[in-house]
């Protein structure tokens, strides 16, 4: 056997392993900070390209008839008359202290506003992620190893699910489960029942995506020699699924979760509107309509933060779930 030049064979003892993990973590965190800075910078300058006067947005939006004095007043209040560079560093300085500025339209601190919104959206996203996971696992466990019909059916369901637009799915779910059967309210009420339809709307297409990979890695895992070993030990088919292959099937799902969360936050814009739920997505949509720049920036940063945190988390979870990753190291 020809070996790779380095790193084959016996793994390094614990200490360097820990050092390696620490180094990896430091790299991850450094990357995360960089990403946040870049997102803030990009957003800051991109937003300067927006046609329209921020002062106008502050004074009740484009339709209002603010006087010249009022506009001037606002420009100096918000530092909009300062040079761009000064504004940029002022923003960075504020960001460092966790200050995201004040909403143009709502006149409240953005941090406070988003702080009140993010909980709902995260809860929605996390519940949907969990539901998608369960659905995807169930579907892939059900549709693998049962012959071609089940497999074809499973693949078909995945494809359809992944192709469903949220707003349409939501309308159908409301028509069937609210208007038709009366099981769940069409407007989220903060009760668990009101959560069912929004979560289902978000979870079904995501489950379609997840099930695709899970099924593939499940099939892949089922072909691995360790499955033969386990069978030769007397393990039952069910035991093999739940003790062995399910973990392997879950691995790509874990590393996808960062992306999935971002995807869910995208979907939340639509779902929160339809189900009348408070949250970041709706806040963003409204802020976009009103050109409420601090809020748009705040949401973008917050979402980037969530993504970054999620990336670090999934990386760590994946390393715990699959120690091989820790040995191979990062790209």
């Amino acid at each position, binding site marked *: 056997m020809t070996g790779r030049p380095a790193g084959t064979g016996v793994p390094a003892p614990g200490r360097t392993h820990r050092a390696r993990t620490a180094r990896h973590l430091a790299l991850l965190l450094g990357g995360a900070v960089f990403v946040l800075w870049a997102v803030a910078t990009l957003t800051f300058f991109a937003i300067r390209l927006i046609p329209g006067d921020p002062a106008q947005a502050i004074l009740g939006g484009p*339709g209002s008839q603010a006087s010249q004095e009022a506009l001037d007043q606002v420009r100096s209040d918000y530092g909009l008359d300062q040079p761009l560079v000064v504004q940029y560093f002022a923003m960075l300085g504020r960001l460092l202290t966790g200050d995201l500025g004040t909403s143009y339209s709502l006149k*409240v601190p953005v941090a406070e506003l988003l702080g009140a919104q993010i909980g709902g959206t995260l809860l929605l996203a996390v519940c949907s992620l969990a539901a998608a996971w369960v659905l995807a696992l169930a579907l892939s466990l059900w549709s693998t190893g049962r012959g071609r019909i089940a497999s074809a059916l499973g693949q078909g369901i995945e494809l359809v699910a992944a192709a469903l637009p949220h707003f349409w799915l939501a309308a159908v779910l409301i028509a069937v489960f609210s208007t038709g059967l009366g099981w769940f309210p069409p407007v989220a009420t903060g009760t668990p029942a009101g959560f069912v339809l929004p979560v289902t709307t978000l979870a079904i297409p995501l489950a379609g995506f997840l099930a695709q990979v899970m099924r593939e890695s499940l099939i892949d895992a089922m072909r691995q020699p360790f499955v033969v070993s386990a069978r030769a030990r007397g393990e039952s088919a069910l035991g093999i699924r739940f003790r062995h292959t399910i973990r392997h099937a879950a691995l790509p799902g874990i590393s996808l979760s960062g992306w999935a969360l971002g995807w869910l936050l995208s979907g939340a814009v639509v779902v929160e509107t339809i189900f009348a739920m408070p949250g970041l997505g709706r806040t963003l949509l409204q802020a976009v309509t009103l050109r409420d720049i601090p809020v748009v920036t705040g949401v973008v940063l917050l979402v980037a933060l969530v993504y970054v945190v999620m990336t670090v988390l999934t990386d760590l979870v994946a390393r715990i779930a699959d120690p091989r990753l820790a040995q191979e190291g990062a790209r």
Partner: protein
Amino acid sequence: MRTATPPARRSRTVGLLAVAVAGGVLLAGCQADEAPVSEEPVAGGTLRYASGDAEPSCLDPHVGGNYPQALLASQFLESLVSRDESGEIIPWLAESWEASADGLSWEFTLRDDVEFTDGTPFDAEAVKVNMEHLQDPATQSSTGYLALGKVDRVEVVAPDVARFVLTAPDSALLESLSQPWLAIESPAGLARGMEENCQAPIGTGAFVVDGWVKQERVSLVRNDDYVSPPADAEHEGPAYLEAIDWRFVPDAASRYAALQGGQVDVIDNPQPDTIAAADESGAFAWLDAPRPGASNRIELNSGQAPFDDERVREAFLAAVEVDDGIDALYFGTAGRSYSALSSVEALAYSEPELFATDLDRADALLDEAGWTERDDDGTRMKDGTRLVLRFPVSTNQSVPAEQSLFEQVQATAKEAGFDVQISLLDLSSWYGALFAHEYEIVSAPYTKVGPDVLRILYHSDSITPAPSGYFANLAQVNDPEIDALLAEAASTSDPAERAAQYEEAQRLILGGHYLLPLYDQQNSFLLSPKVHGARALPTVSTPSFSDAWLAE
């Protein structure tokens, strides 16, 4: 006019229907069903309201001043005067009023038994503070500020007498003051500063703002010390309802589904097809309350080519066919308008003949105007220029049915050789297009009590943009005769003279082919059969629940 048959819809709400029939529905003002009062009002309960209007960014209607703010403010703020169904101004917080002979000074005698819900007494000083608040640039008032354009100052004559001193006579003053955007708030509340006041303004109304969860709801609780209903109210004293749960549900289908599921009791802005279905089945009561001020109309930009040529404007009006579309899209819930003003306005003047569809006439007019060639699409050309009409549509202000109607306008105008280019824009982009004059036709709602809205929309002063770029005269009507008539009408104190002047002005505006009226500004509510005694205030048609009660 309910000619179109709404498609059959399965009724799952037989039980509710029975309740509705048994209970009857009490609706003062503009109501759908005139049912006799057969039950004693019941006190208690929380009314759940689902609003499709945008969530206000500030609950104080002095700040900015748009319709969503008015909707909410009507529940907890009150104005000096109100209006009854016939359009007469009636007392509210002011018991009576008197104008000086020159029309430059108005004295309001106020009720002396009213307190704001924070305990501050309501008096002339409060009125003065409120008007100063509205006129202070820092308040960022738009609607209220404009309405007080002729008010120089307010003087405290006595604790219960406030005097408005005007720079010029203003026949619209009372109508202006009746609007929720000029409602009276507690001076102590205003003194808290904008940020705090926006969260929970303090008024004298039947309800009090208890809390506001952004993107979700405003909680309103009963004002137990309420004493000041308007003169046309059904009952004195505190409201029957304990509370109102005011939710923001932007999606119309979700809103209706929530009403169907019994999750909410009242919804606003229902889709026309659901109104028709609800109305036909009787499952829900329909409260039809068109907004005052202007009608919904398409304005033709006469300030630039091709509509600077009146023949082209006339041709457009002759080419476009909207009657069938309105019938089909609104399921018979909206009547065609032929006036610049809402049918709510007593002084509205209609001229249906002007808007008859006549394709031959359109063709003849366009030929006459020199738009004789046609390109491959069938679009007319003149000197190599295509007859293009840019039509920015705000997705935030036009309901889907209206957008569909615009598509039909687009399709019918095409036959005469107009290339109507609709662009769906969000609010900011839409204003951007207007401010840049990048439109030939546009539709913009304008709500204001009284015919004075004509001055705002069609006086040449309104062509000059505000510092923000805003201008109200989107048709770019610049006719000295119209200007003179509108100015005179605004300062005439004699009602008959005023009416005549407004009619003449409207005749000129309509006759100038500046606009295509469509229908009243639609403003509907669907009410669960449990809800009794709800009405729309005849001022700006916002709902009022001070007389409402919930059946068991």
